[in-house]
């Protein structure tokens, strides 16, 4: 028996990016597929799904709403970027960054999203400066807590300190489950092997990952083993794909607006071999999370060199897993 909860299901259209890139799926196809799984909360990387951002042609916006309505879905989250390096010779200044995020808040409102995923490189001061507009629009800003960051990383600690000081409930988090890499993802391993990683070194890295050895040390050990460049890349991947404790979500629950249900693969047994969604969902239920689990398939980049990408099948499998874990059976 799954305890009662208010967790909703959704899909980030990022999951269908490969098919979208190759023009095998339209925006309407993406929305239709998500909705067909009962995952009606739609998250969109607007610079991927629309053109001309931020001046998206009105026909596209109208088409977006028409698709949502046709399929019984709704807009959940707009994924925002901050082009700090727009200019080659200088970074955006504070005012320009604030203007950029404000633009995204207005865009999110225009496409019906109550949540904005704020990309993790956004300085907390910029987010804080946008709180008044976010409250005015009733759009919530959630920093994407994305590996190698985690709730206890100095960068996020500082974000928490500055944003909680505002007292606003329109500023918080969009945690990306890629920070809960409990087991090394098989699709990463297999790709490194295809690229020429040394099997003996690969085994060493997998063991070190299980033993939670400091990645700096693994890198040095692997160098001593005579690692080739691919081996080193694999060792480096430990730095950027961290394991942390899903229970740390609990402290921040009131300000978690959306969850990037990142996954690299749902295998034939219906499980994500690297990210423990059973543990994660138990914590979310315990904490009374009432936002979305938004499917974010990112396996395509690890298999595209050797396999056909099938975002739809992968999303379907993850949503089946969610239904099971959420007691929707």
């Amino acid at each position: 028996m799954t305890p009662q909860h208010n967790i909703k299901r959704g899909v980030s259209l990022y999951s269908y990016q490969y098919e979208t890139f190759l023009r095998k799926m339209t925006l309407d196809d993406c929305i239709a597929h998500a909705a067909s799984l009962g995952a009606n909360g739609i998250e969109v990387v607007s610079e991927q799904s629309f053109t001309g951002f931020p001046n998206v042609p009105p026909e596209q916006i109208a088409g977006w709403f028409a698709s949502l309505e046709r399929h019984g879905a709704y807009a959940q989250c707009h994924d925002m970027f901050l082009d700090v390096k727009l200019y080659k010779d200088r970074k955006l200044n504070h005012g320009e960054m604030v203007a950029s995020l404000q633009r995204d808040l207005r865009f999110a409102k225009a496409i019906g999203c109550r949540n904005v995923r704020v990309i993790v490189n956004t300085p907390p001061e910029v987010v804080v400066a946008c709180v008044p507009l976010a409250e005015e629009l009733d759009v919530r800003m959630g920093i994407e807590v994305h590996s190698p960051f985690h709730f206890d990383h100095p960068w996020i600690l500082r974000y928490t300190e500055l944003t909680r000081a505002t007292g606003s409930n329109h500023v918080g988090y969009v945690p990306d489950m890629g920070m809960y890499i409990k087991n090394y993802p098989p699709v990463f391993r297999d790709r490194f092997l295809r690229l020429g990683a040394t099997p003996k070194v690969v085994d060493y890295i997998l063991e070190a990952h299980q033993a939670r050895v400091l990645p700096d040390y693994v890198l040095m050990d692997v160098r001593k083993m005579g690692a080739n460049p691919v081996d080193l890349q694999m060792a480096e991947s430990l730095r950027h794909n961290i394991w942390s404790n899903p229970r740390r979500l609990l402290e921040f629950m009131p300000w978690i607006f959306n969850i990037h249900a990142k996954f690299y693969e749902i295998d034939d047994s219906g499980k994500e071999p690297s990210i423990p969604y059973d543990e994660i969902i138990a914590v979310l239920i315990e904490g009374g999370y009432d936002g979305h689990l938004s499917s974010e398939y990112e396996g395509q980049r690890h298999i595209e060199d050797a396999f056909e990408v099938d975002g739809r099948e992968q999303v379907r499998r993850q949503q089946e897993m969610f239904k099971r874990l959420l007691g929707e059976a």
Partner: protein
Amino acid sequence: MYDQHIIYPGSVKNTADGWQLGARLPYYRGQILSAVEDIALTVDGVKVPRENVRFTVRGKTRTLDEVEATYDERWEFGEVAEVSVLQPGGLSAGAHTVTAAVQLRISYLPWSPVTTCTIDTTITA
């Protein structure tokens, strides 16, 4: 990512003043042109001079230096841009190996990743 899809299949061909190919952005979202630091082309191991390369989206053609100074136009996600080379006579008839390496300035990364695509193609006389 999208490495193998940068050069659009079957797009390499000669033109009135050189040759061209269709190119897609190797990234998961559209980019403001200023972020495109380079599109390095190589034919049969020989680098094409950067100043001979032209980039065209939606009917407007730019040099790569002009691309870097364009803040109000995008190379959209999955969009096939026309990348052309000023080279009198174009490519010789026969088999060629063509490489396109796209360098992007990604705001949240401290380095500018380069993604490379190499294809074999045949120019018919």
